[in-house]
Each structure stands twice: as C-alpha cells, then as structure tokens.
C-alpha cells in the first residue's frame, strides 16, 4: 500500500474504530468476539482500501464487510463450538461491566442473520432495500426475517411479563 494510502487508512481506522466496535458488539454480544470481528473487518478494509476509499460511503462499505464477516464467522463458529466442550480457564483479566437492558438478552437469542437484519434496520436505520443490498438477499427475505425476529422478541417480552404478573 502506498505511504499516503496507508496514512489515509490509519486515520480512517482510528476514527472508525469506536463505532465499528459498537456495531460489532451488537452483533456478537461479547467483547472478545466484538474485538476480533471489528479487527478482522478493518484488516479486510485495508486489503481493499483503494476500493473502500473510492466508495460513495466508505462507512457503508465497511459496515457491509463487518456484517458479512460476522455472518460467515457464525457459520464457522457453529461447527467449532460443537467440538470445544471443555470449559475455558477463568480469565484473570478485568472483565467489562455487564450490559443492562430488558430486550438485550432476547436480541442475543436471535439467529445471526436475524440479529444482523435487526441491527441494520434499527440501529443503522437502513431501509429494507439497503439491507437487502448489503446482505445480498431479496427485500422479501429482509421483510420476513425482520418479521420473524420481531415476533420472537414480542413473544419473549410477553412471556416475561406473564411471569412477572
């Protein structure tokens, strides 16, 4: 990468990192996974920096990378986690504060693709058409995925309120 492009990318990465990390956390729900996801996203962005920098919205381009890395990593993780049964050793690192939120545990229950659609629709505030383009799926699939995800959340909230009542 030319020196100027490298400097451009470094500046972009430093600026984009906090927002990227937050998006990654919303997708993964864990700090370690979020850090890995955001890091891998930037590595890919650097690899294709010329294309990213030319994009109408580099942020949108990088969000697309983030989402796709997340979805492909979930497919791999599903296989890997079947194999890793042994409990990990307790970490001596200070752990980040737990996240508080009524809906958050149920959002984490969503299937990866549902969670990705929900984050893109309601956190990124993207239109259904934009989500479809970003994920390479049809608008109809975005609609049905969103519908199923919201139905799951509505049901989860309803059952919780039933328990509390």
């Amino acid at each position, binding site marked *: 990468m030319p020196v100027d492009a490298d400097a451009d990318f470094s500046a972009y*990465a*430093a*600026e984009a*990192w*906090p*927002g990227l*990390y*937050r*998006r990654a*956390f*919303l997708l993964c729900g864990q*700090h370690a996974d*979020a*850090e890995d996801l955001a*890091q*891998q996203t*930037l*590595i890919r962005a*650097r690899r294709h920096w010329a294309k990213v920098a030319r994009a109408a919205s580099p942020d949108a381009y990088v969000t697309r990378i983030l989402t796709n890395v997340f979805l492909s990593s979930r497919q791999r993780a599903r296989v890997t986690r079947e194999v890793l049964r042994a409990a990990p050793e307790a970490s001596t*690192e*200070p752990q*980040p*504060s737990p*996240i*508080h*939120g*009524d*809906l*958050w545990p149920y*959002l984490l229950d969503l299937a990866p693709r549902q969670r990705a659609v*929900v*984050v893109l629709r*309601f*956190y990124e*505030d993207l239109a259904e058409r934009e989500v479809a383009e970003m994920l390479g799926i049809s608008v109809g699939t975005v609609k049905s995925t969103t519908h199923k995800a*919201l139905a799951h*959340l*509505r049901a989860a*909230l309803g059952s919780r309120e039933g328990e509390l009542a």
Partner: protein
Amino acid sequence: MSIEELVRAELRSVADQVVVPSLPPLVERRRTWPVIVAAAAVTALVIAGLAWALRGRAEPPPVEPPKRVQIDRSAPTIPWLDGETLYVGGEQIPGRWTEMVSGGETWVARRHDLHAVWGRGTEQHDLGKVGWFFGRTVEPMGMSAPFLSPGGRYLAYGGDQGNEGVSRLRLLDTQTGRSTALPARFDKHDIDAVTDAGLLVTSVAPDPDARPEVREHYLLGVGQEPVRLEALGGMLLSRTGAPGLMLRDSGGVVWAVDVVGDHIRRAVEVGPSPVGTEASDARPPASLSPDRKWLLDLRWAGEQEEPSTVSVTSVDTGRTTSVEAPKGWAFAPRLAPGFWEPAGTLITWVVEGESRGYRLARCAPAVGACVLVEES
C-alpha cells in the same frame, strides 16, 4: 411504544454502554490451510524434537494480553470542591465554598458569604461579592462572574462599581497580582472567556429583547484597541474553562475556536447541542480537555438530570463518543462542571442511584469510562 421503537432504543442503549477498547494492531492472519495440512505431520515432529532438545533453554514468547487502559483511582491533586469543602494540593482551605473553577495551580471560588476568592496554592485573595459563577447570568449581585484563563494566568472579573451601578470589568494577572480596569464602555458586557495571553472576549446584546438573542463580541486586552469579532457573526458564546473558545451559534451548532492574538485562527464545528441555543443559564460550562482533543458539555446529556452516560466530542473529527459513569452511578452535571486534570482526565461528581450518595469519579474520554476515586 411499538416493538420496533423498543428495539431501536435498546440497541442504542446497549451501544452507549459498550466500553470501547483501544484500537489493536491490525495483524493479518495467514490462511495457508493447504500448506499447513500438508506440512502438519512433519512440523509436529520437528517442533516436538526441538522442544525436547531445547527444553529449559528458551522460554516461549509471552502472550501479550489485550491492552486495557487502567484509570487511576487516586485522589485528585488539582483544586477541587467536596461539597462545601475546598481542597487545594490535598490541603483543606478554611471556609465553606459553593463553586470553584481552576486553571493550573490557580483557583477562584465563591465563599458561602458570596465573596469570590482566588488563590495560587493555599493563599487567598478576596475579590468581593459576586453573582453566580457559571453562565451568563450574573444575578443576584449584578456583577460579572469571575473567569479564569485555562492555565490560570489571568482572571477577569467584575470589580468595584462603575457606570450606573454596573461593575467595572477588570483583568488580574495572577502571577503579579496586578489588577487593571477595562474601559468603562464595556461595563455592561459579559465576560465570555479570557486567554492565557491576557485577552478577554466579552459580549453584549444590543437588543436584549430580541429572540433569538444576538450578541456582539469583542476582543479586549490591556493597552490594546478593542477589536469587534465580526467573524463570529452574532454567535452566542458559551463559556469554556480551557484553551480556545466554545461558541454556540443561533442554530444550536457548537464551534471550537482558537483565538491567537487579535484574530481567529480556526473555527471547527464540533456538533449540535441538543439543549437549545441559549447560553444564559446558570449551569456548568462546556470545556475542552487540556490536550485540546475532547469537548465535554455535561448539558449534552439531554433531558436526564442524572444520566449514566454523557457524550464527548472529538474536536479533531467532530464525532461524539460516550463516557459511561461507574456501574450503579450516574453523572450529576448540575452539581459541578468537572475539573480537567493535566493528563486529560476529568474529575467529576457522580451520584449513586439508591443511596443518593455522591462521590468523585475520574473519567477518561479516550476509553469512554470512569472510575470512582479513592476517598481522602
């Protein structure tokens, strides 16, 4: 609230709670699976043999843990106010105090009898009675509140009575103790800022009834001809306790401005303020960190009286990021503006939700987090 709105609010809330670590090194993972598979058996044998041969002679390289910034929990050494007790350099200053601002070793505080007192270290100098410290409003005493330059070199204040019972603006050099009166025609001006070079920015509303309020700004210096700051175009000035100036224009957009000599070096838009366009309340001012990287305005916490997160804005990029109060605690922005430390951390008050107890917290905008400081 619909489920869509609930989800949107929840995602935003979770994102705001996330403490973002520093950007790690971007190291490529080499995905040479075919080569690895082909060489796996040979490599394993070689490694096993080497490990056996070299055991005890070489330690494996340590695995570097992810970098996490630890925020110092020790009690602050900068001047700070604990309730009505004023501490300077760790020593208690006699008296009861209600407000305090500081720059470097210099501080100025309002004593319980409404007298403003300034000092360097533990020495004290009485300036007489003053009104509120924060904001443009100078009631009930009708005198302009004292204003300290970022590094504490100069103090601007409303001194003895001038025209029509309005206090005369004065500029005090805290190194020499010399106080100079400014021209009488600025008696009705408010002090908006003072720089460490001894320059004041003052403002006046030609038509006090106009809404939105339009103010004229002037740059004043001892022995210098006053300069009308035309470039500001009637922006409303919000006070800042740090280098540069914070300006809030009539559209509610906040600008960071450097004043060098008698001209504006640069103006950077740092974002909209959601609290409206008036700068005339008696709440703490916006401030820049000493390293000029962060703009903090606790009023930007929105309508919440005690928010668990506040936004800081990067002056370089204009982007905002969240700073989270310690778990179980919330910021108390109406209590005090917070006091910047030279390292770029902020000492501010937080309140516990259930006990309603107040503690000092140290916040690091760079990592978006705060910790409770040890009680002295």
